[in-house]
């Protein structure tokens, strides 16, 4: 296997509720990229990806409970670290 950093990813249903979350991720993670397939948006990032509650709230202008992402979450990879303010996916190699 190669020694390059592996991607972590997270995917959401491609809908209006998920859009500010996706935009927040892309704003907070400059190396992340989003790919759209029918019904689905998948975001890949090398090694690490963070979702920040504050950035989503800036996007929408209202309070956001980070666990709301569960409603439109489709899949993810990597180890999870989650608290009230952020959710981080990462590989440790």
């Amino acid at each position, binding site marked *: 296997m190669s020694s390059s950093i592996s991607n972590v*990813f997270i995917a959401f249903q491609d809908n209006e509720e998920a859009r500010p979350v996706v935009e927040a991720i892309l704003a907070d993670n400059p190396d992340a990229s989003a790919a759209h397939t029918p019904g689905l948006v998948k975001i890949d990032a090398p090694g690490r990806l963070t979702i920040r509650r504050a950035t989503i709230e800036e996007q929408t202008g209202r309070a956001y409970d980070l*666990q709301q992402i569960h*409603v439109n979450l489709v899949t993810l990879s990597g180890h999870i670290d989650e608290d009230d303010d952020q959710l981080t996916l990462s590989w440790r190699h």
Partner: protein
Amino acid sequence: MDTRVAKKKLGLKERYAAMTRGLAWDTSYQPMDKVFPYDRYEGIRIHDWDKWEDPFRLTMDAYWKYQGEKEKKLYAVIEAFAQNNGQLGVADARYVNALKLFIQGVTPLEYYAHRGFAHVGRHFTGAGARVAAQMQSIDELRHFQTETHALSHYNKYFNGMHQANHWFDRVWYLSVPKSFFEDALTAGPFEFLTAVSFSFEYVLTNLLFVPFMSGAAHNGDMSTVTFGFSAQSDESRHMTLGIECIKFMLEQDPANVPIVQKWIDKWFWRGYRVLTLVAMMQDYMLPKRVMSWKEAWEMYAEQNGGALFKDLARYGIREPAGWKAACEGKDHISHQAWNTFYNYAAAAPFHTWVPSDEELDWLSQKYPETFDRYYRPRLLHYRAQQQAGKRFYNKTLPMLCTTCQIPMLFTEPGDASRICYRESSYLGDKYHFCSDGCQHIFEQEPEKYVQSWLPVHQIYQGHCFKEGVDPTQPGFDPLMAVLDWYELNVGRDNFDFEGSEDQKNFAAWRGDAQPAAGEGGAA
């Protein structure tokens, strides 16, 4: 009383700890070992259950709130779909056969998962693991119900769905997913989580739901997209339970490493074999295609699984034993499976067909190394035979692999022109396998697999006829007697799509107002 103290709200981790560890207690009337007897005999050593890291910390109030939201969204879509005759909007009626396979072979697994997680949700000594498993058990019951509700609308209009539960326990190819899950359910709790949460959900489930649901979206099936994604939205928690359980076992004691590795080897291969059905659905049963099985395999198994096993290497875990063979199989298995189902279309309650020229070209483009060389000529031959009025139906019974229960349809590694056969003896009897992977699994636990309910063996032993049927009568037709026992409507549920009732009905319902394929202009 008169000074109000501002109570600091607990953070997420504290809230979840209060619900799990905080509400748990050690038993005193009976020793803990006697109350939780099942999580030791597998040999997994746990020194400190408090080191269990909770995957996704949903407390009960949040769980009910978000699950309720998911349900409301889903049922709004299902209702709108039914009211607007959404079934007429799917790309073409062949697509519905993928849904038949889903309700027959996948939905019952959700129910098995519900039972399995309810069981381990009782039997882990650690409260964190118990709560996670209990929540998942409820999720799985929800999946079984929502999938059944969503697909019941199709059952009003199409054949091949009306006896899905009855078929699951009887029909030959459905013993593949059924035996997979029964194997997991009858293992100990740690092996069950390694099998279902880690190997199936974390490593492989993306291959089932993500491209397939995207395919449903592309084929105009909003109701399936929605139940698929609604189920999948729970999946991230399930996958995380899988990886947390693996890490927990590996971190608790180095003696656990070889046991876990053995389970990963076994369950990766078992899961990979079950996904053969999905590979076939993806490449052959979606009239409008999103990605090939091979592309999905590369994206979700090779890239993501590769990253995962690189990560677990620090514990001394390597990639599963069958990994390379599975990666080689990405060029072959969907074609080999479709060929088999095309052959046995008389004995299966869904339709098969030879793909159109345009679809064959798509397959050639997606499988440049193998499709034209091995698989296209065979399909063209079938088509020529059919057009000459000689549609071939294989009426003999195939030899099954004792472990995965799939007919012997896979080829030798490195030689796609030769069927792969392996054979082992146990207590004087011979057992047959489709691969080194399945043979190895058998040899680790022969006493388990010699009990397999192999459909072909059962038919030959006369266990698959209705009561009172006399196979010694002159003119006895064993296939018809088996189909009768299946409760399969011969001529409606089975045979080629070409000429089927589904095909005729769908064309009639859509009427002439619908443009024929290719004339619809830009999408």
